[in-house]
């Protein structure tokens, strides 16, 4: 529990989540979502949950990222809000 | 949503301190005298299954039906893509 590190990651998490929701270009939103997942994996490892961090890195950042990109390519890339 | 935030903060104000080893979920024995799961797993995981990684033991043995359900969830998701998106070509048509 290194609380300074955790605090920094928390701030980045909040920023990336807000950017992912507010940006108009959906591909950027998806990339920010992947960044969010990866930071979250980092935070899990920092808290000692290596299994959960590993899973989040592989599944959340990897596979979900690929599927998100695929959906954006299959549908439209623009968003109105 | 403000209501939700209010409820959450209200709840969090009374949660036990994070990481406190005297927490009830980390305690040796619960208030009614039954076994507390977390400590049982730490103490007995290696003895029961000869596996150093406790998470694997809990996942695969103690709570194996959870894991089975989880596999079924993934299986369900696969079947759903098959159901919603694909249409099998009949030979007769």
């Amino acid at each position, binding site marked *: 529990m290194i609380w300074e590190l955790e605090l920094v990651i928390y701030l980045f998490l909040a920023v990336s989540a807000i950017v992912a929701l507010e940006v108009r270009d959906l591909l950027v939103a998806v990339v920010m979502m992947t960044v969010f997942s990866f930071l979250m994996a980092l935070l899990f490892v920092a808290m000692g949950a290596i299994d959960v961090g*590993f899973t989040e890195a592989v599944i959340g950042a990897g*596979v979900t990222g690929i599927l998100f990109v695929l959906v954006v390519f299959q549908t439209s890339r623009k968003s109105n809000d | 949503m403000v209501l939700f935030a209010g409820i959450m903060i209200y709840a969090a104000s009374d949660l036990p301190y994070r990481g406190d080893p005297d927490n009830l979920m980390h305690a040796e024995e619960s208030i009614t005298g039954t076994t507390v799961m977390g400590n049982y797993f730490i103490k007995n995981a290696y003895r029961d299954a000869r596996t*150093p*990684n406790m998470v694997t033991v809990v996942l*695969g*043995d103690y709570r194996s039906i959870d894991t089975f359900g989880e*596999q079924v969830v993934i*299986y369900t998701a696969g079947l759903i893509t098959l159901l919603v*998106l694909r249409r099998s070509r009949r030979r007769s048509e």
Partner: protein
Amino acid sequence: MRDQFQSPIVLLGARLLSPYIMVFGWYVIFHGHYSPGGGFQGGALLAASLLLIRVAGGSKLAELQIQEFATTPLAVIGVVIYFATGLVAMIMGGYFLDYAQLPIPGMEADWLRYTGILIIEVGIGLAVMAILVMIYDNMARGEDYG
């Protein structure tokens, strides 16, 4: 995925990387007893190695690797491995998924549990790999509605 122009460098990188990810996936499945990892992570890594080729090289190349109609039986096999393990234990007189009742001669209860966990992790890995690839394939081909 729609026809993008193909970059040979990306394809070369993906082809170079894919086998190592796959080997690492199997390592994660079988080494889950001693280090972080297990069926889900390993299966997801296996799927990632297959998806990498699919993303980089398009579906024609990917057909050579694992064909689309093969994914559903693989998923079923993965579920059946887990289910049958539990069922065998149940037939041998224990509760469902009671690995100590597995009919493997010459093993104590704790080593039987060790083996049982290994078997189900392989089942989970297979099912997760097959299904993630299946989701990708079905999504990439779009819906044939109407």
